[in-house]
């Protein structure tokens, strides 16, 4: 199984920077993959001492577990699995590598996560659509952004499944939660947690400070936080 990753850089940049960015993503995959038997994360799950970057990721995930009242939990699936955070964290690392090479205007996407920096063209912010939960070829909203991470958790995709670690069941009544903010890994964890909260998610997303959110309910209502208005 592969996750398509898109990198769109609108500056002149040494193509080797792209190679370094993809090398980073491959390293993330090899280190954190729960599908690879001897990945570092698998060995850590069996008691091995984590390397410094893995320890830092796990520490961040622990802080997010507390911030989300346990709704984001790397042990939710019965094994150590930080991919709900790592997905976004990996793109942040790739963006940093590209920025080091002089890329100021870029758009990255992987597995439904989006990270944008700068502009798509002079004076024109990036246009980030939010997938319509029921119509594959439509968007529910469009965000205009210059520096933003956008993550969505939902149950409309074939094969998508988020378990609420506290109840053990999928949530009811919510089709998707999109969280947008300065750090994509954090937005990822918040979206996962808010979706797991079901109908209590939207109210909780109103407490996330500089992270904005948009929740699409099964009954056709869309609830968004005040911070989202400036992006629409």
């Amino acid at each position, binding site marked *: 199984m592969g996750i398509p990753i898109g990198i769109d850089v609108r500056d002149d940049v040494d193509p080797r920077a792209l190679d370094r960015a*993809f090398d980073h993503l491959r390293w993330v995959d090899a280190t954190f993959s729960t599908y690879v038997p001897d990945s570092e994360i698998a060995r850590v799950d069996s008691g091995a001492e984590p390397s410094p970057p893995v320890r830092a990721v796990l520490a961040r995930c622990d802080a997010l577990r507390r911030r989300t009242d346990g709704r984001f939990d790397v042990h939710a699936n019965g094994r150590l699995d930080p991919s709900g955070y790592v997905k976004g964290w990996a793109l942040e690392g790739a963006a940093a590598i590209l920025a080091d090479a002089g890329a100021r205007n870029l758009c990255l996407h992987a597995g439904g996560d989006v990270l944008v920096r700068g502009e798509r063209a002079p004076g024109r912010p990036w*246009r980030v659509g939010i997938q319509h939960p029921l119509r594959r070829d439509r968007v529910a*909203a469009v965000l205009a952004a210059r520096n933003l991470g956008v993550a969505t958790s939902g149950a409309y*995709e074939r094969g998508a499944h988020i378990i609420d670690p506290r109840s053990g069941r999928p949530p009811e009544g919510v089709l998707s939660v999109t969280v947008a903010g300065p750090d994509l890994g954090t937005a990822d964890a918040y979206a996962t947690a808010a979706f797991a909260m079901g109908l209590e998610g939207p109210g909780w997303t109103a407490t996330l400070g500089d992270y904005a959110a948009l929740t699409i309910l099964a009954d056709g209502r869309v609830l968004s936080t005040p911070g989202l208005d400036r992006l629409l």
Partner: protein
Amino acid sequence: MTGRVVARRAVPAALATVAVAALLANVRSRPPVIPAPRVTPPEPEVRRVSTRPATASGPVRTGTGRIVTTPFSVIQVRVTLTGKQLTRVETVELSGTGARTQAINAHAEPILREEALKAGTARIDVVSGATYTSESYRDSLQSAIDRARG
């Protein structure tokens, strides 16, 4: 900006979250019969939303909103702001004790903007959606965007 580099590659596995299909249940059961608010209501039920102030600092202010009638309850919302950050939302239910409500985020409605779901065709550069596998990526809106941009 004069250059543009676009690259698409597939990276194996584990950036995906583990997933299976979920059925979406209709959320509304029959609402309970709510008695009309009495002129002198009994002790109102206060339901708090547990929030963490995180790094909130600054003057603490509370505000009480208008009374909101939903299909399931009559409520009033109190919010607490610490500095500029919303740190607590409380709902005070005025419908009478014993009435278990099924209000869907009634406590958050004055804070959240509510709109009807629309299906848009605006031109976009990228789409954020729930995690997809490479199989469903082929059918995805993001795939269509990537193909259109060559």
